[in-house]
């Protein structure tokens, strides 16, 4: 790297100043604690209320049992031990059909097909149940089932609710990520790490057989929440969104409720207000983006190749050009002298114009005109190599107004400085801005073999590399809604550190065109009448001179923000600095021109000095190849070198054949890299890592009442929680490390408990999202700890192994009927697990089961959501234009569009949760809307017809009784009893009579099918 400045001239501690101090200074923070702050709670004392919870689970030996024949797994010994101690016996084991239906729904959320039932029943070899479990866990439908469970925790939705119900662009990519992760059995610690820092883990997990980055998709959960339409106070709005994220984070991953500590220390748990704000820091240091997850890894690699190629090729090419350039140097003085004498400065009144003089002999008039043109251009362009020359001609001093200053004047609030590398952490999404700011003196590659070097960067800047201009989003990929969508900054954005706006007068020193997004308070839903000013386009015109442009953010004085610079079409863009000041800054870090000595006075003397500078520039270029470490060139050399390169054509500088050949090879290699670049990509929700932000405690949760500091950390009560001080990053990677440490007492317990809850109908800790003091105590703490330890240390965080062992336990195969009549008296709540409760299927499982039974199920996995089926009850603002199909194309329910304001009424009736925060345990209600749906929802009638037709097709000549048996087996997984068969046949006879002779028999069978779908056997699992 080439530094334009001598290191000693760097402002001391600027790095630390920008990164740390700025972001630490809370919004108008008082340095003293808040006046009303009470003494904080005593963490250690609080932990004593539940000492077991705050220690990592230990390896345990399963307890002894009196009946050694019953247990099939260590888990059963825990259960049986407690039953025996209580003097109770476990329920009988269910028959194979009941077990198969239970385990099929449990693992895949789908009923067993008739073929699967037959296969299982005819498998009489030992291990038949295990073979079923292995098959189910290998099914792609396993991932769908468990992804849906996880989506409940992440309040998954595809729109933002509120006024317009705007889309959350490409949210479904997160859903599909979950499905794949569960199907591939990604270890839970890795899965969790990806949720917290999937954008930061190195190396990322790739989709097998591809270069697609899976890890980064895990971070999408952070952006699945509601977003308010045009809130007046976006800081308050941010605080509410942070609350929601903290709530989801702590309930889902830790089984703790921390969000109530937003306003006061937790009433019962060892959680302080400070712990709440310590978590918000991680969120504040991260921003939103649509990540090019499909192509980012490949393109990063190609960018590396491109960098290597350029590092190797460009200096040699520059050296070659320098050699040719030397040849024309002698021709410069006569031309420049003549041009100076003949030139009429623009704006000169005609009367005082220099009278035409003869062109000196030997000079080409055309070329001379070019020189005169250069002088005209230089007269108004401060960064032109000849600007100083022109000024001297006009008897002005060398000093250019607002002359070059390497450093910002004291007192100027510099928020980002890209004129030198390393001033602040480099935060660029994608490759379009390279790996850091380009230092002054960087060679700018050209675009054709005749012109391999386009120029020299005469100032340091974050520069958009036109190589990447072809980046595009894949067809069908969604843009962000509102004004953010227009910024098109995916994979071509560079941002500043996070800072707090003082008076809000922000100025950017840039050249070219850009669309800027000021991420004030992380507000991303730029819809509605307010906050349009947060995105703004800037264009400094065709001049080669960087200019200050002003972004008036004064309405947000006192708010936190960072600035994102994105592209505007294919226009060039260089960003030098971001400052905040009342006035447009006088600071000008741009090397202006070739300064000339005071001794030179005549045009000829001045021209000679220019020629000397050009010769020095040639020397410098020629030396680039030999030594990468030569001292940084002076401003005059940079300006001169850049001028030579930009004016080669008319100056008549012709590269030698060797240079041309090298150039051709360079462009060949570049085009080979370009061919390997993946230009189009789909995008997905993702965190983008920013700079460290530590929040202050906000007194009573009020956004503008900062109290004491709350450095980023897990809640202090958690063993191993250490404050994270990285100023150059959000700190989420360290957070993920701490969270997934096997010593963490909560993570594994919470997860195994969730799995138990889903399989057994109730968690070992029934309040699955709250292990704290207000949650319920574990019914079997030893078993919980045993499972948690095994999960981490034996099964290496494998969900499939955990589920595999749990469903093969004797406990799982217990009937819902108590064997022991005293069980209902001694333990009516079934805390001891003497039976497995009857359970109603979840909303999605009911619909999926309906489609499976009718034969309509479309087993495709993943993909964009199926539009909502609209009826006269799905109404309100933001209603989609078109209704989706009644049967949702036969897709499983988790693929139906999850529009917050248009959730499926039928799914809601069966207790699908409203996606507002973590719901680890759904309600199970019993409301008439459910029965009414079974009776009259058109989907049930339609599918009853499809099912009846399927039966008639597959059993064309069977007796009615045999058909009834066929229907029972498909819908309920069992055969009818004699009484049930009789009832069905009797009903069939009545139906035939009611329909009359002219109706087809299919009508009656359809009605019978519909009735069977209405029975409890269909929606309950025994």
């Amino acid at each position, binding site marked *: 790297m080439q530094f334009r400045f001598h290191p000693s001239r760097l402002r001391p501690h600027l790095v630390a100043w920008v990164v740390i101090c700025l972001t630490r200074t809370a919004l108008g923070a008082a340095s003293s604690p808040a006046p009303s702050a009470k003494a904080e709670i005593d963490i250690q004392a609080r932990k004593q209320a539940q000492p077991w919870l705050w220690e990592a689970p230990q390896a345990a030996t399963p307890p002894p049992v009196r009946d050694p024949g019953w247990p099939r797994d260590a888990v059963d010994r825990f259960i049986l031990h407690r039953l025996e101690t209580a003097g109770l016996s476990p329920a009988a084991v269910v028959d194979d059909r009941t077990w198969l239906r239970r385990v099929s729904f449990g693992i895949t959320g789908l009923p067993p097909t008739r073929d699967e039932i037959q296969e299982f029943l005819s498998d009489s070899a030992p291990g038949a149940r295990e073979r079923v479990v292995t098959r189910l866990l290998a099914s792609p439908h396993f991932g769908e089932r468990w992804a849906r469970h996880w989506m409940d925790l992440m309040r998954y939705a595809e729109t933002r609710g509120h006024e317009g119900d705007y889309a959350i662009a490409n949210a479904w990519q997160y859903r599909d990520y979950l499905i794949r992760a569960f199907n591939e059995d990604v270890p839970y610690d890795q899965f969790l790490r990806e949720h917290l820092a999937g954008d930061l883990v190195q190396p990322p997990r790739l989709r097998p057989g591809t270069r697609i980055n899976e890890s980064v998709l895990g971070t999408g959960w952070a952006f699945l929440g509601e977003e308010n339409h045009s809130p007046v106070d976006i800081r308050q709005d941010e605080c509410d969104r942070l609350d929601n994220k903290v709530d989801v984070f702590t309930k889902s991953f830790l089984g703790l409720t921390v969000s109530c500590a937003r306003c006061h220390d937790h009433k019962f748990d060892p959680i302080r207000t400070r712990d709440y704000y310590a978590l918000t820091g991680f969120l504040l240091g991260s921003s939103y983006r649509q990540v090019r997850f499909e192509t980012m890894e490949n393109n990063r690699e190609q960018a590396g190749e491109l960098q290597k190629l350029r590092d190797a090729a460009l200096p040699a090419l520059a050296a070659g050009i320098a050699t040719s350039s030397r040849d024309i140097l002698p021709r410069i003085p006569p031309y420049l002298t003549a041009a100076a004498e003949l030139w009429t400065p623009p704006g000169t009144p005609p009367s005082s114009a220099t009278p035409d003089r003869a062109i000196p002999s030997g000079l080409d008039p055309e070329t001379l005109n070019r020189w005169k043109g250069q002088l005209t251009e230089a007269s108004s362009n401060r960064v032109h190599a000849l600007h100083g020359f022109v000024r001297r001609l006009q008897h002005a001093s060398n000093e250019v107004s607002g002359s070059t200053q390497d450093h910002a004047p004291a007192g100027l609030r510099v928020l980002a400085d890209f004129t030198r590398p390393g001033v602040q952490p480099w935060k660029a999404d994608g490759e379009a801005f390279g790996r850091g700011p380009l230092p002054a003196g960087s060679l700018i590659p050209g675009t054709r073999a005749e012109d391999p070097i386009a120029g020299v960067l005469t100032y340091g800047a974050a520069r958009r590399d036109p190589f990447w201009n072809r980046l595009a989003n894949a067809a069908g990929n969604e843009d962000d809604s509102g004004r953010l969508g227009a910024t098109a900054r995916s994979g071509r954005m560079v941002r500043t550190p996070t800072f707090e706006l003082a008076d809000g007068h922000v100025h950017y020193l840039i050249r070219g065109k850009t669309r800027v997004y000021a991420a004030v308070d992380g507000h991303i839903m730029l819809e509605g009448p307010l906050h349009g000013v947060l995105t703004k386009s800037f264009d400094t015109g065709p001049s080669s001179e960087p200019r200050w442009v002003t972004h008036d953010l004064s309405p947000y004085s006192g708010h936190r923000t960072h600035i994102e610079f994105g592209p505007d079409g294919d226009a060039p863009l260089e960003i030098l600095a971001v400052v905040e000041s009342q006035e447009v800054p006088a600071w000008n870090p741009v090397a202006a021109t070739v300064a000339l000595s005071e001794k030179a006075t005549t045009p000829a003397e001045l021209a000679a000095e220019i020629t000397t500078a050009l010769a020095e520039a040639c020397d410098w270029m020629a030396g680039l190849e030999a030594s990468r470490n030569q001292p940084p060139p002076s401003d005059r050399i940079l300006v001169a070198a850049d001028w030579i390169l930009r004016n080669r054509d008319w100056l008549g500088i012709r590269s030698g054949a060797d240079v041309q050949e090298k150039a051709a090879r360079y462009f060949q290699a570049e085009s080979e890299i370009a061919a390997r670049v993946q230009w189009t990509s789909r995008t997905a929700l993702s965190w983008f890592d920013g700079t460290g932000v530590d929040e202050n405690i906000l007194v009573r949760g009020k956004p503008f009442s900062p109290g004491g500091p709350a450095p980023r950390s897990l809640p202090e009560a958690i063993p191993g929680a250490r404050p994270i001080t990285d100023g150059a990053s959000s700190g989420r990677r360290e957070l993920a490390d701490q969270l997934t440490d096997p010593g963490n007492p909560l993570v594994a317990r919470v997860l195994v408990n969730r799995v138990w809850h889903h399989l057994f109908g109730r968690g070992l800790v029934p309040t699955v999202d709250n292990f704290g003091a207000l949650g319920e105590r574990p019914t079997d703490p030893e078993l919980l700890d045993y499972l948690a330890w095994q999960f981490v240390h034996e099964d290496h965080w494998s969900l499939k192994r955990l589920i595999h062992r749990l469903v093969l336990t004797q406990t799982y195969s217990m009937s819902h009927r108590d064997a022991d009549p005293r069980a209902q008296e001694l333990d009516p709540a079934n805390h001891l697990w003497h039976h497995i409760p009857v359970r109603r299927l979840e909303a999605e499982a009911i619909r999926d089961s309906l489609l499976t039974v009718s034969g309509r199920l479309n087993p495709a996995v993943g993909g964009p959501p199926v539009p909502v089926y609209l009826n*006269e009850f799905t109404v309100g603002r933001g209603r989609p234009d078109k209704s989706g199909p009644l049967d949702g194309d036969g897709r499983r329910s988790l693929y139906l569009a999850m529009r917050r304001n248009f959730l499926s009424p039928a799914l809601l009736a069966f*207790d699908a949760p409203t996606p507002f925060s973590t719901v680890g345990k759904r309600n199970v209600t019993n*409301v008439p809307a459910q029965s*009414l749906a079974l009776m009259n929802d058109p989907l049930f009638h339609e599918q009853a017809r499809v099912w009846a037709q399927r039966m008639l097709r597959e059993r064309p000549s069977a007796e009615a009784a045999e058909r009834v048996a066929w229907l029972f087996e498909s819908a309920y997984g069992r055969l009818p009893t004699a009484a049930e068969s009789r009832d069905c046949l009797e009903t069939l006879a009545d139906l035939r009579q009611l329909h009359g002779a002219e109706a087809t028999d299919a009508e009656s069978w359809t009605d019978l099918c519909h009735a069977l779908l209405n029975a*409890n056997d269909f929606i309950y699992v025994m």
Partner: protein
Amino acid sequence: MPHGSPALFLDPRINRREMLRRASNGFGALALGALFGADATQSRAATLGSTPAVPSATPHFQPRARSVIFLFMEGAVSQVDSFDYKPMLARYHGEDPRKAIGKLEKTQFENVGKVLKSPWEFRQYGQNGTWVSDLFPHVGRQVDDLCILRSMTSKFPEHTSANYFLHSGLGLQGRPSLGAWVTYGLGSLNENLPGYVVLNGGQIPSGGLDNFGSGFLPATFQGSLLNARGTPLANVIPSESSERLQQVKQRLVQRLNRQALEDSGGADALESAITNYELAARMQVAIPDLLDISGESEATRRLYGMDAPFEHTRTYARQCLLARRMVERGVRFVELTIPMVDGYSRWDAHGGLVKNHGDNARAVDQPIAGLLQDLRARGLLDETLVVWAGEFGRTPFAQGSDGRDHNEYAFTAWMAGGGVRGGMTYGATDDWGYKAVSQKLEMHDLHATILHLLGLDHERLTYRFGGRDIRLTDVRGEVIREILA
């Protein structure tokens, strides 16, 4: 109280009472009391052992009101053009509000115009000479029944958050709505109808159906949306071509269900589901019966304005009449959304105040007055609390030239019947109607008072969710004692 025929599809071979007795956790009380409420949940709790305890469906103390009719004026009615008369606005009309009023708070659109006097005349009504504008001449004549709250405030100047706040006490999606809390606390009085019904006039509020949601409360308590026009309730119209056909099918369903119940050894979940199925069947009768207003007299219809020339008056008249029929039948909480008056965004008069408020008021004024009179005439007003409110107020200065922007610092609500004092006003705004200054009320106070009138202590009506005992009123709310009759 009209009922659908009970146990319509019960097989006579089995005595239902006997079955109930056999079940370990009988839910016989269900049919008598909280139809969709407490008992069903408790029996489920016993099955799964994990659902939080539900308060008994009895009030905490002697209730004043049995039912609530909530007339939600979505979009925000301007207080200074309706019930909060401010002569100062006429005096300073057209002047710079920053000079006349002083420092202004930020507004949603930040397009502050001049001080804007009300385009409507105000008149004095009733025994106390209460000022009401010409927007509400019919309601004005009922002023002796109204308790006008002039010092209401919200916290959000944006519709969705404010709607959630008004409905659920929090400006975010996902909390139970007031109607859900009430039904959760008290259950329903009618075994054939939901406890919380939203009568949809056409305008679904910002924030969508979640304004009427049950949040973390069981779905049992969510508002059932009943369309005033078109199909009234999802899936309530039988799909079968004949009643007999449905009966034959349901007979089979019930037989299968009973066998499954017996096989299960009387699992509560299955038993509750059977009852639920029967209730749903009865609703297919009860809802059409509720909606069939052919028995209402011509005078009653005219009283509500069902013969009005303005289409939207007729719609709202039908809603108000249905609301009366519902409280007659014991529905706990009826909420009315306003009709979709052509081309307007609710009461949200950012521009064109005269036409917006004029048309919206024309739609609701006579029906509301008719409802109050009809309830009184039938002796229902004493036990029915009528609440009229929007989500916030509007600015006393113009947005642009002829609109008013959102204003969370003051708005007017009123209550009538159900144990509140009529003919009174409570609280006051400043001279401009800009900010509540005297006896300032929060949304939580309104909620606490409504619950109080229903016999519920807002501090004791809680639900354990995510480790906290959550209240409708969060940690705030004071019953407005002065307005209790």
